[in-house]
C-alpha cells in the first residue's frame, strides 16, 4: 500500500526523487515559519493561561471549602433551622472604603472611625448568625469569617484577570498574572490554613506578643482598659511594670494603642520606657523564631493605633523600644509553631534584660504585647 501511494504521488507530479524531496523540504519550511510567525504568541498565551486556570481552580476550591467551614463553625451557635447561607454569602462581599487621603488632615481619625464601624458591623453580623456563642467564641467566628473573606477576595480578583485576559487575548495580562501567582497562591493558602486554625480556636503565631505579656501578667489582678485590652501592674526587678495585652482567649487584637495612650495619660506621662513586643515578618532565609531588638512602635495595624503610641511617647519624650520575633505570614496566621513558643521564653528574658539595662529601680515601664490573642489567656 505504501508503495502504491508513493508511486501515485510521484507519477502525479511527474518529478524525480530529488525534486520530491525538495518540494517537501520547501513545504516543511513554510509550515515551520507559518507556525513560528503566526502562532507563537497564541501558544505562549495558551501556556500561561493554563497555569492561571489551574490556580483559579485551586482558589475556587479553597473559597468554596472556606465558605462551607463558616457554616460548620456557626451551626452549633445558630438558632434552630435558621437559614444563614444567604446572609453569610452576602457578608463575604462586605467591603470597606478607605477614607480620602488627598486632604490628609485628620485622616487617621477618619480611618479609625471607619474601622470602628466595620468592627461594629462584623460583631453585629456574628451576633445575628451565632446568637448562642459567648464573647470569645464570637471573636473567633469573626476571625474565621475574615479569613474566608480574604480567600474569597483573592479568588475573585484572580478570576477577574483570567477572564479579562481571555476576553482581550492579552499576553501581557497572562504574563503578569502568571509571574505573581506563586506569591499570591502562598498568601491565599496562608489565609485558608489560618481559617482552619481559627475555626479550631488554636493559638496562632501572631499570638506571640500576648503570650509574652501573659507570662508577666499571670496571677496578678487584671484591669480592663480601652477596647478589649487588659493590663496588670506587676513588679519586674524592682520596677513598676504595666503589662498589657488583648483580652483572651478569644481571637481579638483590641486597641493596644489606645490602651498605651490611656495608661501614659493616667500616669501623667511619668513613664520611663515603653517596650513593645510583636511578631514581625521575616525575610526568606531568616529563621522562624529569631528574636531581634529595635526601636519604634512595633505594631502592624492600618495606622491609628501606631499613631496613638508614637504621639503619646513624643508628647512626654518616652523612649520606645521594640522586640520582634520573626516569622512568615503563614507562620503568623496559622497554628503557633514550637519554635515560636520557645522564642516566647527568649523574648520574655529579653524584655527583663531591657528593663534591667535601660531603666533604674523604682522606674515605671509599660510593656505591650501586640497581636491576636486567640487561645492565649492571661
Amino acid at each position, binding site marked *: 500500500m*505504501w508503495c502504491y*501511494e*508513493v508511486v501515485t504521488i510521484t507519477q502525479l507530479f511527474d518529478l524525480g526523487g530529488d525534486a*520530491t*524531496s525538495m518540494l*517537501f523540504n520547501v513545504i516543511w519550511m513554510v509550515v515551520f515559519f507559518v507556525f513560528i510567525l*503566526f502562532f507563537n504568541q*497564541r501558544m505562549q498565551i*495558551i501556556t500561561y*493561561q*493554563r497555569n492561571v*486556570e*489551574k490556580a*483559579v*481552580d*485551586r482558589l*475556587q*476550591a*479553597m473559597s*468554596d*471549602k472556606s465558605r462551607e467551614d463558616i457554616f460548620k463553625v456557626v451551626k452549633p451557635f445558630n438558632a434552630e433551622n435558621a437559614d444563614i447561607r444567604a446572609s453569610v454569602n452576602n457578608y463575604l462581599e462586605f467591603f470597606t472604603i478607605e477614607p480620602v487621603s488627598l486632604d490628609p488632615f485628620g485622616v487617621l481619625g477618619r480611618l479609625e472611625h471607619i474601622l470602628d464601624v466595620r468592627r461594629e458591623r462584623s460583631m453585629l453580623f456574628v451576633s445575628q448568625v451565632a446568637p448562642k456563642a459567648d464573647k470569645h467564641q464570637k471573636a473567633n467566628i469573626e476571625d474565621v469569617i475574615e479569613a474566608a473573606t480574604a480567600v474569597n477576595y483573592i479568588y475573585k480578583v484572580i*478570576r477577574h484577570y*483570567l*477572564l479579562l485576559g*481571555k476576553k482581550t487575548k492579552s499576553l501581557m495580562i497572562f504574563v503578569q498574572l502568571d509571574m505573581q501567582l506563586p506569591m499570591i497562591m502562598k498568601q491565599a*493558602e496562608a489565609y*485558608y*490554613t489560618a481559617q*482552619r486554625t481559627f475555626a*479550631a*480556636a*488554636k*493559638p496562632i503565631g501572631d499570638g506571640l506578643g500576648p*503570650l509574652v505579656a*501573659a507570662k508577666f501578667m*499571670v*496571677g496578678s489582678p487584671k484591669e480592663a482598659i480601652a477596647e478589649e485590652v487588659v493590663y496588670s501592674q506587676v513588679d519586674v526587678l524592682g520596677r513598676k511594670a504595666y503589662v498589657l495585652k488583648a483580652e*483572651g*482567649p478569644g481571637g481579638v487584637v483590641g486597641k493596644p494603642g489606645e490602651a498605651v495612650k490611656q495608661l501614659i495619660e493616667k500616669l501623667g506621662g511619668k513613664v520611663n520606657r515603653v517596650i513593645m513586643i510583636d511578631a514581625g515578618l521575616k525575610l526568606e532565609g531568616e529563621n522562624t523564631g529569631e528574636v531581634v531588638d529595635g526601636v519604634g512602635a512595633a505594631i502592624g495595624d492600618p495606622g491609628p493605633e501606631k499613631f496613638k503610641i508614637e504621639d503619646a511617647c513624643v508628647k512626654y519624650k518616652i523612649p520606645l523600644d521594640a522586640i520582634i520575633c520573626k516569622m512568615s505570614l503563614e507562620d503568623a496566621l*496559622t*497554628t*503557633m*509553631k*514550637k519554635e*515560636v*513558643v520557645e522564642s516566647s521564653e527568649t523574648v520574655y528574658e529579653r524584655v527583663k534584660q531591657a528593663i534591667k539595662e535601660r531603666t533604674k529601680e523604682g522606674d515605671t515601664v509599660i510593656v505591650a504585647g501586640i497581636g491576636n490573642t486567640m*487561645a*492565649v*489567656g*492571661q
Partner: protein
Amino acid sequence: MTIRFPTRASTSDQPKSNGKPRPPKYAMLSVAFAIGAIVLFLLASLIDSVQDYSMYILIIGAALLVASWGIYFFVGKPSSKKALPDERENVITVIGCKGCDKREERAFETGDFMFKELGPCAKCSGVSFIKAIYLIPTKKE
C-alpha cells in the same frame, strides 16, 4: 488568517466549578503519540532499508507530535491539581503546675487555651494549667 482554538471558558463567564483531573487515558495517549513520533524519526534517519519512504515517515511523525501536543493542550483539565492543605495537624497541649515542676503533654482539645487553669494538681497542692500549645511540624517541612 484566523484559526479559532477551542478554549473552554469562552462559552461561559464562570470557570467550571468541578475541577476534575484530566482523564489519565488522554495523558497516556498523548505520551504514546510522542513516543511513536520519536520512534518514527529514529527509523527514518537510522534504518537504511526505509530510506525511500523517509519523508513520509517524517510527516507521519510530525502529525503524531502535533496530535500529542493538541491532546496535551486542549483535552480535559490539567491533572496536577494538588490537594488542598491538610487539615490534620499535630498540635500538642503542654500542662504544667504552678506549685511543682510537673510536665504533661497531650493532644490539643477544643476549648484549650494557654494559661487556662485545670484545677488542682495530682502531685502537689498547686494549680495545674496549660503552659503551652504548639504545632509539631509534619515530616515534609
